[in-house]
């Protein structure tokens, strides 16, 4: 045995298992069950078949599959499902986690090397999980003279704003969005306007030189690229006549807006890269000049939260690009319909015929929408990740020059094209197309 690691003794191992079980049970009964009770007190319990569904009834009905289905179906229509699972936080976090892994592997393949390889039997699939556990187990160090309330709150605020952004983006037709706001786009830009504030707060409260420089650079960058971002979307709004994101997608059922407004799409894409602080615009995080920019002083799970927030923002921006320019969830109907015999007659297994009333859970149209949406978002994310391997970092005066001169000019050209198309009667309400 090595001189550093202690020897293995079976007695100590069994003792540790018993210890963990003991503490697990204690925590579950003393903390977990009261929490669940309090949660259920505030949740609206659905009414099924004339009876209020209490938790005990829910657990008993789960035993019978034919009564499970209506329960699950009704749960899927609640607001909580939309916030937590789809299309809200759970879905976005899954896409974000997938993006991080795919980014590392794709960058590695581009650079002719393997990325994460050994964690998890096939090509390092479990790398992200081990990174998450590692971050959870690290000590959180706060600088001595830092402004503690703001410093603790900053990553949480960051994730909260990113989640608020995610909640405004529709993922499928028929109201599959967490917050169906009539002024969708303006709400989106209002939420995006928070990010520079949070960045500056977190870098100022860290009370150190490198976060300070990183925060100022991030502020310059984000503020100067917000204007082209908004202006480039104006073309789409003019042609659609509405600010609601779901209606914008529905108006693209014949043509996608990128066909008529390519300049706007390019301006939006470049401004999006700058808002996300991705290469070539990653000055706030420039590793070779200022150690890690405004993220320098975050350690442990705070760093994990900031990364989660960043990648949630990436998913949300990519989804916004898809919704505005690439036709959202519109696509040919390729999802196979649910077999009709199972709905009417049930599944036959030998002498028993099992009936499942209430099937299908999600209708075919919605699944088709989700499929096309995910395909398009994955495509856009690929093009966001690609410049990281190909371009160096841009200098700050060139960045500001691009943001204030070139992109605003191009987006005005885009608005003129949109106005021209509208007044020529080609597009828009009452147009040819």
């Amino acid at each position, binding site marked *: 045995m090595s001189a550093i690691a202690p020897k293995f003794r079976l007695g100590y191992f069994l003792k540790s298992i018993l210890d963990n079980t003991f503490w697990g049970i204690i925590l579950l009964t003393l903390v977990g069950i009261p929490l669940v009770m309090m949660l259920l007190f505030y949740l609206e319990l659905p009414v099924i078949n004339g009876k209020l569904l209490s938790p005990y009834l829910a657990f008993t009905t789960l035993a019978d599959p034919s009564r499970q289905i209506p329960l699950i179906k009704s749960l899927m229509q609640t607001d909580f499902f939309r916030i937590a699972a789809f299309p809200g936080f759970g879905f976005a976090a899954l896409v974000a986690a997938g993006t991080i892994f795919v980014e590392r592997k794709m*960058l590695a393949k*581009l*650079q*002719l*090397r393997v990325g994460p390889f050994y964690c998890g039997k096939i090509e390092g699939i479990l790398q992200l999980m081990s990174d998450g556990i590692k971050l959870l187990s690290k000590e959180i160090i706060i600088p001595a003279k830092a402004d503690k309330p703001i410093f603790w709150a900053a990553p949480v605020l960051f994730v909260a704003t990113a989640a608020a952004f995610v909640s405004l983006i529709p993922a499928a037709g028929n109201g599959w969005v967490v917050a169906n706001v009539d002024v969708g786009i303006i709400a989106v830009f209002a939420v995006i306007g928070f990010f520079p504030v949070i960045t500056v707060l977190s870098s100022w409260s860290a009370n150190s030189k490198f976060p300070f420089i990183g925060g100022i650079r991030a502020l310059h960058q984000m503020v100067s690229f917000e204007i082209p971002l908004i202006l480039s979307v104006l073309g789409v709004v003019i042609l659609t006549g509405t600010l609601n994101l779901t209606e914008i997608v529905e108006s693209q059922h014949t043509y996608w807006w990128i066909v008529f407004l390519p300049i706007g799409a390019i301006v939006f894409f470049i401004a999006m890269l700058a808002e996300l602080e991705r*290469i*070539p615009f*990653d000055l706030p995080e*420039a*590793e*070779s*000049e200022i*150690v890690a920019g405004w993220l320098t002083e975050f350690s442990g799970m705070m760093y994990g939260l900031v990364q989660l927030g960043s990648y949630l923002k990436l998913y949300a921006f990519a989804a916004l690009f898809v919704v505005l320019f690439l036709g959202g969830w519109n696509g040919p109907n390729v999802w196979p319909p649910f077999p009709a015999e199972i709905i009417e007659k049930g599944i036959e297994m030998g002498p028993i015929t099992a009936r499942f009333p209430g099937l299908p859970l999600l209708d075919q149209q919605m699944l088709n929408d989700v499929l096309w949406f995910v395909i398009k978002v994955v495509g856009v994310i690929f093009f966001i990740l690609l410049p*990281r*391997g*190909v*371009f*160096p*970092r*841009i*200098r*700050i*005066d*060139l960045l500001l020059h691009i943001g204030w001169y070139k992109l605003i000019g191009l987006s005005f050209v885009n608005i003129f094209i949109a106005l021209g198309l509208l007044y020529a009667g080609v597009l828009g309400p009452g147009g040819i197309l």
Partner: protein
Amino acid sequence: MTAQLPPGLEIEKLDERIMTLNVGPQHPGSGHMRLIVKVDGDYIVSCDPDPGYVHRGEEKMAEYRNYITNIPHLERPVIHDSCNVLYPYCLGVEEILGLEVPERAKYLRVIASELNRCVYTQYWLAIYGIFLGHSTMFMWPAGDREFLIDALEKMTGARVTHAYFVPGGIRNDVPANFEDMVLRRVDYFEKRIKEYAAIFYDNPILISRTRDAGVLSREDAIRLGTTGSTLRASGVDFDLRTKEPYDVYEELDVKVNTLKAGDSYARSKIPWLDMLESCNIIRQAVQKMPKSGSVRVKLKPNPKGGNTEVYKRVESGRGSLGCYIVSDSKPEPYRVKMSVGSFRNLICMPYLLKGEKLGNMPAVYWSLNYWPVEADR
């Protein structure tokens, strides 16, 4: 403070506008050397390089070792370019001891020297990519030099610090089917480095960062005494392999690359063009090499020279590298002085960085082909 200061110290008054930055030896944006940069907003007012962080006293230590034991010692200033660092030393000692190097050894020396030049230049390009924030430009050169390091390792037995050149020839002959192996690797290497054009040298973002940054005019380059790729990027056609040929460079066809612009972009492009040229030189040398022959002159146990001094210089990856040896009839040299290209180009740094933007500093500073370890010796 009105007390008397010890001699050599002075009080510096802090200006309100000008901030002093220590881009220090331990910083992700500098090599192992300190730059004391005075910045006014975004513009550099003055820059004071402070070399010496890795000074070891190598020249003094060389006086305690005899001519053969100096070989592993003197190759350490640049570990991956070790053959080029030893080259002038070996040429000098051969003149002191009056040795005649066999033909095959001369050709093999040229091959090893060119391979080392490519290996060093790839590493330099990799670090340049890091300074500009281009991670692919780090990975590709660092991976592609493995082919040449493999060829060198089959030749000399070690990946870096080869200790391959000895006064009198080289230490060991090459293994069987060496020409085949080297040519395959050099062919693949050349194919790889031609890909750098699309992703690095024609990349508009890189061009915007390095064009017109740190412009060194032709007259200034000659006046300041620069050497190597910095000199050739300012339009001066000077390469020791053609101007003062040593070993078998007279028989090889060396094309010297120059560019007129004299900015960081030109200085970053010249070593890449030189690498393409090195591949041609290796092919010519492999073809012209005598197929058999001795590779080393047998030396007596403790070789001694007369009371002479000799100065020889060689074109290394960074510029002209010269070695001045004084011998006084003892097995150990009396004085070994190495004049390295990096240290001579150091004068350009404060001259070029004055008035530059702070964002350009890594681009300009590293483009001077500066290797801190060699400059400090």
